[in-house]
């Protein structure tokens, strides 16, 4: 987004009494608004003019507006003397003569006409000058039916720090209005916390409240033709609010807290769905401002999983869950498309925001989560007949980029990777990305074999991860059985997938290295229970390598038939995938190819 700024501060006047703080105010505004963490205006598209002449201002304005492609946002700030007459408001500049305003001062109307000629999507004008409220009459220039009202036509927000008949006051630290404005941009003053950015109109409200407490200076603000909020600066309170909201937010806790409410409204299914919707809405708005591209899909998935158990018996719940899952899928497609775009630019894009050695553990899990959510998106959209070519191509490119840049970190490390691997590689198989899936499966299996198939258990506590990794590196995971999954579904899955990619013989050759490893395949008998903390109904099918299972074919021969039974209800089928991705101690075995044969009423 192209954001330009013209900041003018005029202290020195050839023919008028000089001022003290206008240049400083302009410098402070320029500094704040070109700071990428505050105003994020592009310094290359911005100019700071200190005590300029009329020609200087005209030249700078022309350069900013006409020397580049149309701007998305243009902000014009003026601090200095102001004057108003019958023709409108004037910004007084270094060479202005008070008796010749029309030819020696910058009339706001001229600025507006210039802006309209090559209109930025949004123009902000801030005037910290005496009589600046006199700009109202200049706005007639903009009120033209042919340029207003249509979607995308230019929007204008004006903030004048004084009324048409008032002085703009100064303190030792700068103009009163400019001080408050800057306090809003850097977070010292609270504006709102529900959005990632602040617009000038809402900042103007705070400026009016604060500065306007003095009856001798009443700021004025106007918004013209504003279709949607236009970011003036980042909202420092939003990030803090976002962090506070999601610091202790866990899907499991949310569902547990929601459950009593859902139980109490079980006889009013519409009300039940409305509860979930209402409670999620606030979180969704905040999640939309998060840099984590998969936070919003996770929040929405939590709502779908909370209603999962009601889907077979409640049409409103089933309809809501279906719609929610489709929305989650579309958001996931956008997220993994973004991941692809970032990876094209920067091969380390998947490293965590905190960096550090912790990514040795987190990265393999993160990589597979991305593949898993991408796979779930495809399954969801495909089951509704909405999987598009773009999503498929992007999924293939995602796999290519991961193999290219992360082949050494897409390894098997933790049991919680199991559902992501199941969903991701099953989707890859069905979409014909066999080479990529074969490569990824080999990477996973080789890493697993290196440590005898031992992976971190799903309930491992964060402060035990370091210990697990140290033992894994030292080859001494036998010494910490409490940190390892026993039995493991992850290795059972890899073995089960191997025939799909002709890796059976290769895996067979390494089976002796997994001797005595206990495998498990938990098959739920009712997938509407798949969001429960503990799924009661279902059977653990246990295997031990070297005791009944020496080759992949031994496992396949005894593979439970029930594993291929998929849920009959579309909503249950969709939400089960997201339940497994949110709570990765369960695997939706029905997605694994060649097992989606029978359709029964299991959920």
């Amino acid at each position: 987004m192209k954001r330009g700024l013209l900041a003018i501060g005029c202290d020195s006047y050839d023919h008028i009494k000089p001022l003290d703080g206008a240049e400083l105010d302009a410098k402070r505004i320029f500094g704040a608004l070109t700071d990428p963490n505050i105003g994020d205006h592009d310094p290359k598209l911005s100019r700071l003019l200190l005590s300029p002449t009329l020609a200087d201002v005209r030249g700078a304005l022309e350069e900013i507006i006409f020397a580049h492609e149309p701007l998305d946002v243009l902000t014009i700030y003026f601090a200095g003397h102001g004057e108003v007459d019958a023709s409108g408001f004037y910004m007084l500049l270094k060479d202005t003569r008070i008796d010749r305003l029309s030819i020696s001062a910058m009339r706001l109307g001229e600025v507006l006409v210039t802006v309209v000629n090559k209109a930025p999507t949004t123009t902000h004008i801030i005037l910290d000058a005496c009589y600046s409220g006199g700009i109202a009459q200049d706005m007639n220039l903009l009120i033209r039916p042919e340029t207003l009202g249509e979607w995308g036509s230019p929007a204008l927000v004006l903030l004048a720090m004084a009324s048409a008949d008032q002085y703009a006051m100064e303190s030792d630290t700068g103009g009163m209005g400019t001080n408050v404005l800057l306090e809003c941009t850097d977070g010292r003053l609270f504006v709102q916390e529900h959005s990632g950015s602040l617009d000038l109109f809402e900042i103007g409200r705070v400026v009016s409240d604060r500065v306007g407490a003095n009856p001798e200076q009443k700021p004025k603000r106007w918004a013209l033709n504003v279709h949607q909020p236009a970011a003036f600066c980042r909202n420092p309170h939003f990030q803090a609010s976002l962090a506070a909201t999601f610091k202790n937010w866990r899907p499991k806790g949310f569902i547990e807290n929601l459950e009593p409410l859902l139980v109490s409204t079980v006889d009013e299914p519409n009300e039940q769905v409305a509860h979930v919707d209402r409670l999620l809405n606030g979180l969704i708005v905040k999640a939309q401002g998060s840099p984590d591209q998969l936070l919003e899909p996770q929040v929405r998935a939590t709502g779908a999983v909370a209603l999962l158990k009601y889907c077979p018996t409640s049409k409103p719940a089933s309809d809501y869950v279906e719609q929610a899952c489709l929305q989650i899928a579309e958001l996931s497609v956008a997220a993994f498309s973004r991941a692809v775009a970032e990876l094209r630019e920067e091969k380390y894009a998947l490293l965590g925001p905190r960096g550090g050695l912790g990514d040795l553990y987190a990265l393999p899990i993160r990589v597979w989560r991305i593949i898993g959510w991408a796979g779930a998106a495809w399954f969801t959209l495909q089951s509704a007949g909405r999987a598009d070519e773009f999503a498929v191509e992007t999924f293939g490119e995602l796999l290519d980029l991961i193999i290219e840049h992360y082949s050494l970190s897409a390894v098997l490390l933790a049991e919680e990777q199991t559902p992501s691997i199941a969903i991701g590689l099953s989707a890859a198989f069905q979409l014909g990305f066999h080479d990529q899936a074969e490569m990824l499966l080999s990477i996973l299996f080789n890493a697993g074999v290196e440590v005898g198939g031992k992976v971190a258990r799903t309930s491992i506590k964060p402060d035990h991860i370091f210990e697990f990794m140290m033992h894994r590196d030292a080859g001494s995971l036998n010494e910490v059985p409490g940190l390892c999954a026993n039995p493991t579904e992850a290795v059972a899955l890899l073995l089960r997938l191997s025939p799909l990619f002709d890796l059976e013989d290769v895996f067979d050759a390494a089976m002796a290295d997994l001797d005595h490893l206990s495998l498990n395949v938990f098959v739920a008998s009712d997938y509407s229970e798949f969001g429960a903390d503990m799924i009661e109904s279902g059977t653990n099918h246990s295997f031990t390598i070297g005791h009944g299972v020496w080759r992949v074919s031994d496992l396949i021969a005894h593979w439970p038939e029930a594993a291929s039974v998929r849920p009959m209800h579309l909503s249950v089928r969709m939400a089960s995938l997201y339940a497994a991705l949110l709570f990765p101690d369960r695997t939706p075995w029905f997605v694994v190819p060649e097992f989606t044969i029978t359709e029964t009423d299991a959920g």
Partner: protein
Amino acid sequence: MTVAHSATNDVKPEPKDAKARVSFFDMAEESNGFSSSMNKMIAEFIAKNAGHRIPTANHLVFSHGRQWTHPAHEHAIPGEMQEHSAEMAMPFADIVGGDFKLVHRFVLQMVQSFNDSMARMLYETLGAACEQSGQVVDGRDKPFPDAFLEGFKKIEFGVDRDGKVSMPEIHVGNPDMIKQLEAAPPEFQAEVERVKAEKIAKALEVEAERKKKFKSGEAP
């Protein structure tokens, strides 16, 4: 297998028209923190004791479901979760009396209660499995050493993950049985040693055959 425990205070029965109980400084964080630390300690003791009977490497943890099967193991018996619980009362008077030893007593009794319950389940399960497979010796009309030898001949030795033959463990309910074994004549000991050597050789042979079933164990 799931475990649970609970503790109750001996709350005096209140008359029907009693007022709802009020409190004076809840101190929930301190109280909950104390309980969770104590529960963690109890769980660790229970796990440690369980490890004495069954090697920790053989402890399986299931997240879901109440039953399990072993589809590839024809002799294995499907199982089902059993719940273990223990309950103790903590007299108000002991708490008011500042009896700090109450914590030790509570933890030890709770652990003991679970141990007893789990041991009972273990031997009952083993007993049922032996009955089902016919691995049972009737020792009613013979001296214990003879019954022991008969049983010893019926069992097969296993080989552990490191390739070492693991000797069977002897669990007896009456210490006199051990004394009877120790007092048995040298011929008995020699016969035990002979059978043992035979069983070790057989176990290694079975283990070698088992390993050959891996693709990598095939003869070139």
